[in-house]
C-alpha cells in the first residue's frame, strides 16, 4: 500500500450513490490541479468506484477497497483527531453532522455543484462535459457512467 505524502490527496468515497460517485470522479482531476496535488489515493467501499476510477483520471496512486464498517470507523476517527482534515470525503451527509443534502435543490443547487463546489471547493466553477469510451459490460461501471 502506498503511503501518504503532502503531494497526494486522499479521497474517500463512502457512498453507493452512483450520481455522487460519478461527479466525485469527474471533478477529481480538477481538484488535484486546484489543490496543487500530484496524485490521489482513493479509499472506497464501493467496488464500482474502484473499477471506474481509471476511466476518469490517470493521476491515481492507488485505490484501497475497504468494508463499510472500516469506512465508518475511519469517519468516526475523523472526529477524534485534533488535526485539520487529512482527507476529502465525497458525501453530502457524511461524516456525521454534515447535512449538505439539505441544500440540494435550494435555489437550484444540483448534486454536481454540491460535489464540485462543496466537497472539492472548485471555485470558480465550470461544469465539465465529458464522454467516455467504455466498451466493457461491467454493470457497476455502467451504473456510474450512466450519469454522463
Amino acid at each position, binding site marked *: 500500500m502506498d503511503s501518504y505524502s503532502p503531494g497526494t490527496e486522499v479521497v474517500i468515497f463512502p457512498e453507493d450513490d452512483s450520481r455522487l460517485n460519478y461527479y466525485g470522479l469527474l471533478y477529481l482531476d480538477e481538484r488535484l490541479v486546484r489543490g496543487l496535488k500530484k496524485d490521489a489515493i482513493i479509499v472506497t467501499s464501493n467496488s464500482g468506484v474502484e473499477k471506474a476510477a481509471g476511466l476518469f483520471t490517470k493521476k491515481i496512486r492507488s485505490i484501497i477497497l475497504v468494508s463499510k464498517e472500516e469506512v465508518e470507523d475511519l469517519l468516526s476517527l475523523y472526529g477524534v483527531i485534533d488535526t485539520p482534515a487529512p482527507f476529502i470525503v465525497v458525501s453530502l451527509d457524511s461524516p456525521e453532522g454534515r*447535512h449538505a443534502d439539505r*441544500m440540494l435543490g435550494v435555489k437550484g443547487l444540483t448534486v454536481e455543484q454540491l460535489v464540485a463546489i462543496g466537497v472539492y*471547493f472548485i471555485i470558480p466553477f465550470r461544469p465539465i462535459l465529458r464522454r467516455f469510451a467504455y466498451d466493457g459490460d461491467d454493470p457497476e461501471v455502467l451504473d456510474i457512467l450512466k450519469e454522463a
Partner: protein
Amino acid sequence: MTNVHKKPFKYRFIGFLKELMVKDSTNFIQHVYFKIKLTTWWKLYKKIANKDGVTYLCPYKGTGDVFVATVLLASQIGEDRVKRSKVCVIGEGSRKVVLLSGFTDVMALEQEEMDDVMRMGTALGFAPLDLFVLHADPPNSKMGITDHLRNYNGINFMDFFVSGVFNNPGLNVKVPAFDECKDSVKKFFDDNGLIPGRTVIVAPYVNTLGELPVWLWIEIVDEFRKRGYTVCTNCDDKHWPIFGSVRVNPSYAELKEFYEYAGYFVGSRSGLCDILSSFDMCKIIIYLSTEQWGSGEIIDFFSMNDMGLCEDAIEIVHKGIDFLTTKDEILRRVQGWERSHGGSKVPVNTVR
C-alpha cells in the same frame, strides 16, 4: 429526537471504546490518547445534556449567527418547547443573545469545550446524543462543506439556516421580545445631552466583516454634529468612541427602546445589524466590497433586506478607496429617508 436515544448512547460509547481502544490496543500512546479523550467527552456530555429533550448547540460565537439561529429555532419549535430546550453557546455575550428569544436554559461554554463537543458529535453521532447543531457549517468542525457554496445560485446567509440547518425553506424569523425600559433610556439621554429622535448611533467596529477607517467615522460624526444631530458610538470598553460622540453599550434586551428613541443608526454590517433589523428607525448599513464572499460580495450574502430580516434597511456598498463618496452617500441617504418620513429639518448640502 426523544429521551429514548439516551440509553443507546451509552452502548455506543462503550462500543466505540472497545472498537477503537481495545481492538487496537497495540499502540499504547493511541490507547491512552483515546481513553483521555473519551473521559473528557463523558464529563462534557453530562454537563451539557438536557434531561427534558434536545440540547441545541451554537458552535460559532458570531452575534449574527447566534441571533439568526435562535430566532429561527424559536419559530420552528414553538413557545412550549422553547421553555424546555437547552441551548449551549460560546461565551457570555452569545448567551445574552439567546435569552432574547425566550430560552431560559442557556449555558455558556468555553471555545475549547465547544470544539470538543463538536468532535464528540462527529465521532459518536449528534442525534443519539440528543444534540442539534444550529449551524450549517461550524468552523470548529471538519465536517462541513456548505460554506463553500456562499453566493452560488444566490445562496445567502438565511438559506444556510432555513435550509441547511432547519431543512424548512418556509421558516420565518420570530421577532424577539425586547425589554420596556423607556424611563432609563430617557434618563440616559437627558444626562448626556442627547436629543431624542435626532441622535445618530454609529457602529464602526465589527468582528468578522471589514471596517471603514476610523478617520472616516470621525468625519461622518463631525458632519452629523454640524447638521444638528447628537451622536453616540456603540462600542464596548475595548474600543474608543469616535471623537465627538458619546459611548453607549446598551444590553441586547434594551436595544430596541434605546435605538428607536435615538432614531438613526449608521454602522458597518455586523451581528448587531441582525438584532436591530426589526427596529422602526433609520437604518443605514454599510457593506465593504473589498472582500469576496464565495462567488459574490458581502452584500450579496448578508443583505438584510434579501435575507428577509427587514425591508427598510438602507444598504450602501463601499468600493475602492473613495471613502468620501461613501460619506456623502450616507448623508444623502439619511436625507432621503427623512424626506420620506415627514421631511428634513437639516441643510441638504454636503460639506467637505
